[in-house]
């Protein structure tokens, strides 16, 4: 469905933002795109939705290219931004009528499509109300409804559950599942890791303009339990290297101060801890269990604050 090859991009007078990005998103998948602020997610989506042109590389959407086949691509694509991208001074119906009228091929069954979008987002009883009077949840639903007007095969959803109550959030997540089950490919960005874990079958984590990990969610999170041991810093480089070599021989990795690996059982964990104690190494933190997306995210992107 979407294929990105060696995409490069930077804003004028700014350093490179996307560096040789390769990404493939299969038709019908519910794809989670994760990354800290400034990682390049929004730019990547702007490129995939034709708002920006890459400086190098190629983007194929269903085998079609921007800008030559822009109209054809956009007819079957929807971008639902994080902001309330509609006119608050207009009613729900007026907003839907306006956005629907911008799709050239929709003039005949426009009203039917508007009704379907209203039904899917539960806005039927609010259709004559001005959007400016809506709560955050209703505004999010209207934002979603506008994106569904063209029955899109490919939907980009940018943090659609920010700032709303649990009921609205549940409703929106349920609607997204239904859309995906109906055959739409969905690219979903969110900072809520548990949402991505619940919803998505494919995930990519990006930072500093690069895709760090990409693939099916189960594969990325590992099926086997994961051990992570955080040590106090080791100042002596020789000692650090000896430890790293020794751990590697046992099937573990040492990255900065963190040892990670997949022990077979509890006794193997105990053995490792004894080995560390014998080398006078202090353990700061230890976790053992199934990998979560949040853990993986912090492992890959670190915990320091971003601008």
């Amino acid at each position, binding site marked *: 469905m979407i294929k990105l090859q060696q995409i490069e991009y930077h804003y004028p007078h700014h350093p490179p933002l996307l560096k040789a990005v390769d990404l493939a998103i299969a038709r019908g998948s519910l794809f989670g795109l994760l990354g800290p602020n400034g990682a390049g997610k929004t730019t990547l989506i702007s490129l995939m939705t034709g708002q*920006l042109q890459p400086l190098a590389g190629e983007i194929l959407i269903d085998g079609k290219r921007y800008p030559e086949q822009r109209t054809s691509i956009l*007819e079957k694509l929807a*971008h639902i931004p*994080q*902001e*309330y*991208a*509609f006119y608050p001074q207009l009613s729900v119906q007026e907003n839907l009528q306006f*956005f629907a009228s911008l*799709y050239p091929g929709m003039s005949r069954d426009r009203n039917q499509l508007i009704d379907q979008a209203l039904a899917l987002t539960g806005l039927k009883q609010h259709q004559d109300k001005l959007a400016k009077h809506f709560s955050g949840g209703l505004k999010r639903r209207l934002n979603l409804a506008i994106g569904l007007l063209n029955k899109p095969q490919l939907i980009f959803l940018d943090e659609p559950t920010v700032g709303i109550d649990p009921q609205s959030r549940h409703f929106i997540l349920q609607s997204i599942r239904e859309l995906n089950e109906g055959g739409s490919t969905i690219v979903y960005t969110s900072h809520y890791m548990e949402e991505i874990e619940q919803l998505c079958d494919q995930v990519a984590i990006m930072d500093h303009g690069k895709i760090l990990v990409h693939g099916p969610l189960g594969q990325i999170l590992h099926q086997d339990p994961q051990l992570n041991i955080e040590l106090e810093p080791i100042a002596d480089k020789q000692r650090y290297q000896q430890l790293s070599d020794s751990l590697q021989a046992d099937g573990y990795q040492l990255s900065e101060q963190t040892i990670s690996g997949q022990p077979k059982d509890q006794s193997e964990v105990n053995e490792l801890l004894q080995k560390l104690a014998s080398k006078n190494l202090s353990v700061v933190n230890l976790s053992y269990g199934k990998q979560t997306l949040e853990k993986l995210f912090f492992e890959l992107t670190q915990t320091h604050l971003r601008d």
Partner: protein
Amino acid sequence: MLFAVIKKELLLVSRDIHALLVLFLLPIVFILIMSLALQDRMGGESKERPKVGLWMAADNHQDGELRSHFEQLEGVQVVSFESTKQLGQALQRGEIIGGILLPAQFAKTLQSPVTERSEKLRILYAATLPRSMRRSILGAVRQALGAYQVNQLFKYDEMSDVQRQQRVDHLLGRSLVVTETHGTATQTQPSSVQQSVPAWLIFSMFFVVLPISTTLLTERQQGTLQRLQTLPVPRSYLLIGKLIPYLGINLIQALLMLLVGIHLVPLLTGEGLQLAGNSWLLLPLIIATSLSAISFALLIATQAKTTEQATTLGGISNLILAAIGGIMVPTFVMPELMQQIAALSPMNWALEGFFSILLREGGWAMAGPEILKLLAFSGCLFLLSIHSYKGLTEIK
């Protein structure tokens, strides 16, 4: 506590570049423009006096005294022309504010007894020249005639009292001067309403910058613009879609203001706006003015990053274009340099177009160039707007 509040307010205002521009730069710019524009009208010795054309029929040239009096008219700079046609053209181009025509035999008329001859001096006024300026020219002409005639008076002796009085009246030129407005078939003179309706109509049309920029920047800030740019519709359509409604709004503005000038103002002042024979030309002129105003507004809206920036920039630009363009101060009272600067303002092109149609009763030949200039201006600005509209999503 109070100090903290005061300090906070000072910090806020010192970091608000738009407020500082309005508070400090705008008055400075206005002081400069208005001082320059009004330097010939208000107080002080004028360096540049308004130019008045002079044409004398060949036989009048032989009277050196008459020529000398008219070449040194009070308060104006006299420019001699060799033909009435050349003088008329200069008047039409706005190079002179009036013209004085001394017909053949005029010198003899002045020297002859009362009833013998009737050749009259003609004064031509520019259509946009206000009454006060007309009176000044008329006064200068009468003064010149008076001075010439008084010299002649001593040449006539034995007369009765009645003859003498008639002679004095004659010598003062009361029966010898006729005035008319250049380029008008009727004797219609420009009134305050004929000056002010076009000027403030143009000014108000350019204020579409406020709603246009507010709408566009709200779209941008709310993400609606981002959504619109991912719809299968050409970006130029999105801008044309903004242009057409505001064109309609400008047309309604124009209709309303013209109706006010024609019907409401006479109820208050007794003098209303009069539409001349070529009034149909007002429609293309208003459309061209509107397109210029909207394109200008779109360019500002697509360049600005915040609503405050757009409204400040738009408001200040409009005020400056109006100040230099003859909206606030008529161009004929400006010195030559300011008049040249005025010709750079699209508001001035529009105003000249209105004056050509309403006051000079001009046709396409007179109003057409102004309309074409406005259309070219709007075309260029609209293309630039489309270009910067495309780049809007890149500004994060």
